[in-house]
């Protein structure tokens, strides 16, 4: 016979918890009880501003464009001179201007989020309208670069550089177009949550561009 009391398992669990708490104290870590008592806002996953799914999308886009840019730079190792010659046909000045365009558009979108939170519907729409127009300016500058390349007889199959640059910048431009539609939609809805989500997508487009621009146009 063991002679153990019926409360033994409970006492064992309590003792184990106490031991873990003691260990946690010595290592300045939150004890299991402290961890459990954290408020909803203190949980790491709940600290992320905005929609969790939008953050999943942002991470995915960084990963996709990052992989594309790594592939671009890896293929460049096979023909550095050819890549440098091909790069000289791109509109570097237009692309640099497009960085300013997107950064400014992102600023207007960030201000629109604040206006939405303050319930200023008219102000948020007045901020989102030029943000969308700047997106159109981006696409016009990008389109003029493509038109110039096509006029020179350059296409996606002219050189590996153009295969990658058209693919990466074209995919990014498609995101700009989608972002413009999204900003128009959330401006029409006007709710803080919708505007925050639309602006987050727009900032992601901005973020991808600041990684893409130096690799494709400058290095």
């Amino acid at each position, binding site marked *: 016979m063991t002679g153990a009391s019926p409360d033994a398992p409970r006492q064992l669990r309590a003792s184990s918890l106490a031991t873990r708490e003691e260990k946690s104290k010595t290592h300045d870590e939150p004890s299991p009880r402290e961890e459990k008592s954290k408020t909803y806002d203190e949980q790491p996953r709940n600290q992320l501003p*905005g929609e969790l799914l939008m953050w999943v999308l942002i991470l995915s886009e960084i990963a996709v464009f990052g992989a594309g840019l790594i592939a671009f730079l890896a293929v460049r190792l096979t023909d550095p001179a050819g890549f440098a010659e091909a790069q000289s046909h791109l509109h570097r000045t237009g692309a640099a201007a497009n960085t300013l365009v997107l950064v400014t558009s992102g600023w207007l979108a960030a201000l629109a989020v604040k206006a939405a939170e303050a319930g200023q519907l008219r102000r948020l729409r007045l901020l989102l309208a030029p943000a969308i127009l700047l997106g159109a300016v981006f696409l016009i500058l990008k389109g003029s670069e493509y038109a110039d390349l096509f006029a020179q007889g350059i296409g996606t199959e002219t050189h590996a550089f153009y295969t990658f640059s058209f693919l990466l910048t074209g995919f990014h431009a498609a995101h700009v177009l989608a972002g413009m539609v999204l900003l128009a939609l959330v401006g029409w809805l006007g709710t803080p949550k919708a505007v925050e989500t639309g602006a987050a997508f727009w*900032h992601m487009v901005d973020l991808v561009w*600041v*990684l893409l621009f130096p690799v494709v146009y400058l290095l």
Partner: protein
Amino acid sequence: MTRATKAWALLIALSAASTAFAASGFTGAALVVPVLALSGLKAHVILRDYLGLSVAPGWLRGFDLGLALLIVTFGTLALAAY
């Protein structure tokens, strides 16, 4: 001045610095390192101030680490081509 406006001014300044390096005629590490470092700084500012990760410092550090690894990979491959 709001946080977003300060961030915009900083991003414009960082973009101008990138353009200055690109127009300087530098090649190799003298071009790659500063241009990619400025790119990383711009990404950090967008995440912190535009996307609001200043309220989630742990997540901001995580994104910064991931982006730093990506940019170091870009830099290594770019320098290998010179």
